[in-house]
């Protein structure tokens, strides 16, 4: 929690998260190709690119799920390249997964509470039953309410509809009160009507939280993002503001063109 930015820091827009010459190779495949990237505090940044461009691989390295082949990752100027997933999480990096990573046999309330317990260092308490800290349980319930999951907080996670599982995935990430939130295709597979809700929740996050959104739905991307990076074959193809990217002919050709064609 010590890394949480103050409002003053937001204005200076110093980079929260940086990568320098980041490379990741899987055997012969270069999934991340020399990516030097900087995420300003409070960013609303979208990471786009065709399938297999290396978006998930990039986020996996930021969150520590994968270690890079070479290059460095900095959080608030501190080299975190070799930090564990846990250490990064505690330093304020939270993420959602492209493929749901949930506790199928637990309830949404338990799922979120587990994350809150960790954040509050309450999870090593082994004698008093869960629920004694009603403040934490209430916080978990309130968070689930924000994602419209109030009616299923005691249901089995595995029995929830896919769209609601996606929402829970976000709730769990938010429970850590992160400084940087990495959302890997949060709306993929979610029915049209529920996609807006995900966007609303993301939009309602406090300004000092820095966001990276990976998303294929261009409509959603342009509604959410102020800045974008386009990743192609593991390398940063082009970066810029929403308008710059929207009007960039190369992007239209490489990425948006493909999108348009695939939509026909």
């Amino acid at each position, binding site marked *: 929690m010590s890394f949480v930015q103050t409002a003053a820091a937001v204005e200076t827009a110093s980079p929260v998260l940086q990568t320098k010459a980041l490379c990741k190779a899987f055997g012969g495949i270069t999934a991340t190709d020399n990516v030097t990237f900087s995420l300003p505090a409070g960013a609303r940044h979208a990471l786009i690119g065709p399938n297999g461009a290396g978006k998930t691989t990039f986020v996996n390295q930021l969150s520590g799920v994968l270690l890079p082949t070479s290059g460095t990752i900095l959080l608030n100027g501190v080299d975190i390249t070799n930090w564990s997933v846990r250490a990064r*999480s505690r330093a304020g990096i939270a993420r959602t997964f492209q493929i749901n990573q949930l506790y199928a046999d637990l309830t949404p309330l338990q799922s979120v509470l587990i994350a809150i317990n960790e954040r509050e260092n309450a999870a090593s308490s082994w004698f008093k039953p869960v629920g004694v800290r009603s403040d934490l349980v209430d916080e978990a319930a309130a968070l689930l*309410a924000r994602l419209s999951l109030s009616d299923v907080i005691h249901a089995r996670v595995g029995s929830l509809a896919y769209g609601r599982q996606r929402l829970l995935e976000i709730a769990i990430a938010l429970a850590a009160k992160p400084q940087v939130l990495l959302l890997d295709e949060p709306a993929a597979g979610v029915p049209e009507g529920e996609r807006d809700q995900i966007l609303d929740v993301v939009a309602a996050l406090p300004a000092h939280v820095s966001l990276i959104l990976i998303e294929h739905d261009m409509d959603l991307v342009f509604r959410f993002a102020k800045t974008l990076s386009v990743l192609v074959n593991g390398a940063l193809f082009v970066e810029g503001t929403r308008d710059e990217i929207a009007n960039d002919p190369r992007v239209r050709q490489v990425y948006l063109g493909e999108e348009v064609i695939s939509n026909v």
Partner: protein
Amino acid sequence: MSAIDAKPPAEAAAPPAASGAPAVSPAARLLAGSRWRWYEFAFWGLALGSYFVFPNKLMLISEILILGLLALSIDLTLGYAGLVTLGQGAFFGVGAYAAGLAAKYGAGAGPWSDPLLGLVIAAGAAGLVGFVTSFLVLRGSDLTRLMVTLGVALIVEEIVTQAKSVTGGSDGLQGVMSSNVLGMWSFDLYGKTAFWYVLIVTFVCFWFCRRLVNSPFGLSLLAIKGNPLRARAIGMPVNARLVAIYTISAAIAGLAGGLLTQTTQFASPDMVAFHRSADSLLILIFGGSGHLYGGLIGAVAFRIMQDFIGNITPQYWLFWVGLVLVLLVLFVRNGIVGLMANGWRRLTQKSHEGKNP
């Protein structure tokens, strides 16, 4: 804290009155999950009552409780943390010999022969071995864990049989004499003292485990079992938690071993043998893992079955165990406890449907 939840939403404040159900706060609902239920009282009441119903079988009942306690220790790792082990017998054996050696050293009269101190020594020794070997099970798949725990158990078994000067080798440890429990009750021939001693120690261990699994720590174990990747991603020290529960589980297994040595006044290589590990895992699967009661109920069922089948066709005992195991695993989720829970749910649902037109 940051201001992510600065704006409490309207939904959160509104009571869930829409459903018409009485409003129970989420925290109260969670707390209710850890409250003692009538069937728990019934279970322990029956265990206590068995003293009066089967006065001639007290040693057998003590042994069943000890077996159940060993299976309960596996439930902590397998049923809650999702760690498969095939070597719990090693910790049982370490505890059995540790308690035996302490009692022998005290020669039945000295302070070292005090049974409660013996249990502490047994749990401590087994917990230490558990702690050291826990680092071997942190990595790898279920298969490597099975192999590693099995390997550790075989090593311990071999050490016990080879270190003749200390353990008595294959002859077993002779001259184990515990002094009186709390200085008052001596272990008698009928097993009366042993029964109460084992029952109370088992209950205290059970109560401890129950607190443990219902706590935030216990919930975090379920998270690790459910999805270790997610658990790490929310900042959970997954390895530290696994080391902790593996050590605790080993200590309880050792305590169970200590109980057996003290009540039988003997420690033999049979107590570290591989079949201990296999039997106790089997008992847990019979009873159902992840409920705490599975081990104890499984132990009762296992012994009754053993007696019953043993009377009819002693040579085919393993055949029947295998058959029941296959049927249980294929057709009943969660063993006997799961079966009973399902039956109860159906019963209560029917009566509910009857009441509500």
